[in-house]
């Protein structure tokens, strides 16, 4: 599974502070730490309250790229900020994200085609997050059809079925798992799938445990990627083990270490 390291996000106080003071040290430390622990991409998010999202995004992309060659996942609802970031990315990036809504899809898919970027498409629209898997799959299909119309290779599209905190939307859990399975039947090749893993445990007491159990359950349903805490060792070990049990990697005694180095 592709791990998109979630830590460079203005929602975290240390990153918000670093952006404000333009102090690259904290950002770069997190970039390196996540890479060393096996992240395949690094999520870059300036945070919800940023007064200057475009400039902040440019700065985060630049300072992150100074210390790592990992591809970046540009995370913002402000598409101008994403585009400014895409212009600076040394490797093809991922856009995080677009809902199944016009004209947002037009804006994002056109941009993805221009910069050769991958896209995370959210299975939601103006009406919000669907309750069941059927409606989620229908929205996923809209994303697939629109991406295809813009010439985006379908395996560059990551559908996020949207996970809710298990203490709030407990009934969403099985619907998300069902959605993950059904998305693989939408096209050939099928789109990839991604979840924002930490959402599932938001507001709970056993966050790491819930995250890693859900990760392996979702992997068994075909999940390709997760925006997650790459520095959570037990999560990374669980993911490496799930890859062995799903026959995705050939077993050897050092399989956990091998997985953590698969990003190099």
């Amino acid at each position: 599974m592709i791990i998109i390291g979630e830590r460079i996000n203005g929602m975290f106080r240390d990153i918000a502070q670093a952006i404000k003071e333009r102090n690259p040290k904290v950002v770069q430390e997190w970039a390196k730490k996540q890479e060393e622990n096996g992240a395949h991409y690094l999520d870059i998010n300036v945070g919800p309250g940023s007064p200057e999202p475009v400039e902040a995004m440019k700065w985060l992309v630049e300072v992150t790229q100074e210390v790592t060659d990992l591809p970046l996942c540009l995370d913002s609802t402000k598409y101008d900020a994403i585009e400014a970031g895409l212009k600076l990315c040394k490797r093809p990036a991922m856009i995080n994200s677009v809902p199944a809504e016009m004209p947002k899809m037009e804006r994002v898919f056109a941009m993805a085609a221009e910069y050769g970027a991958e896209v995370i498409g959210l299975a939601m629209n103006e009406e919000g997050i669907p309750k069941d898997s059927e409606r989620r799959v229908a929205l996923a299909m809209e994303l697939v059809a629109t991406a295809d119309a813009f010439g985006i290779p379908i395996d560059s599209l990551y559908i996020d079925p949207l996970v809710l905190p298990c203490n709030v939307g407990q009934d969403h859990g099985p619907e998300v798992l069902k959605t993950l399975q059904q998305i693989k039947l939408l096209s050939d090749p099928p789109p990839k799938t991604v979840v924002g893993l930490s959402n599932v445990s938001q507001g709970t007491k056993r966050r790491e445990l819930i995250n890693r159990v859900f990760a392996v359950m979702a992997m068994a349903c075909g999940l390709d990627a997760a925006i997650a805490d790459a520095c959570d060792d037990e999560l990374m070990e669980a993911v490496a083990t799930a890859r062995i049990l799903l026959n995705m990697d050939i077993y050897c005694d050092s399989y956990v270490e091998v997985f953590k180095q698969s990003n190099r």
Partner: protein
Amino acid sequence: MALEIYKEKYRSKVGEVVLGATKEQGGTRSHTITVGGEAALPFLHFEGEIKNRPVVALEIWDMAPEDWNPCFQKYYGDVYNDPAAWAKKCVDEYGADLVLLRLKSADPDLKDSSPEDCAATLKKVLEAVGVPLIVLGCGKAEKDNLLYPVIAEAGAGENLLLGVAEQDNYKAITSACMAHKHNIIAQSPIDINICKQLNILIAEMSTALVDRIVIDPTIAALGYGIEYSYSIMERARNGALQGDKMLAMPMIGNVGHEVWRTKEANIPAEEEPGWGEQEERGYLWEATTAVAYLQAGMDILVMRHPEAVKLVKQNIDELMQDNSY
């Protein structure tokens, strides 16, 4: 509407290993040989580039082999006691792409030759032929660990392929290969997990050696479990093509050594009249075993019988014909 035939897409390819070094590269070989580099399953040229031909090595010993079938006498009998002449004959007369020197005489139960004697033999063989060399110890770990550093030093600059590293005994040979820049054979007992783990262990000692590993998956002769080794090789190659770097190495197999231990290759016609003439039966057994392993992705076939070599090289010519469309 034109029919579009489905083609498998592979995410990665097998690494290449260069054997030997010319004068400009610090050695004395007349040329180098590159193995590996496949970007598709064996000979599916239409799905990916099969960059380098599989090659055939002939096996020689540093002492007259007492247990080889008498049919080898007429090919090698006159040179059994002269490894340099033996090597030369393999290359000049029997078309070996490279020569594998097995330092059998170092075996404490045979001649117990010293590492220095073995190094001297290696030097003579290097002088006699221009092809890249593969060098194996006697097969007894304790003695081989004394041989490796001396052999590696004697062959410094020649970019040898040295064998063999095993899971329980890989440090001495890995150090020798690191110190004198040779390639290394990593041997696992028909076990994909150990195969991968051993490569990781070698890589942990030296990341530079990762691109110098040749996998010996351990093979069996036709009729003696060939399907086990075949499926291990198939899994390793599929893993390599799917991006498993710790399995993305070329493969070598001791075809001759295995085949010429079988009853089918050795029993005289008088004992089994229905089986046909012994020598022909033997080399056909060897050639058949070899071509099966070509289909499993073997890059270096170590063989013994000149007639089998002829047949196998002909088969390689045919398999290397581009069949892309």
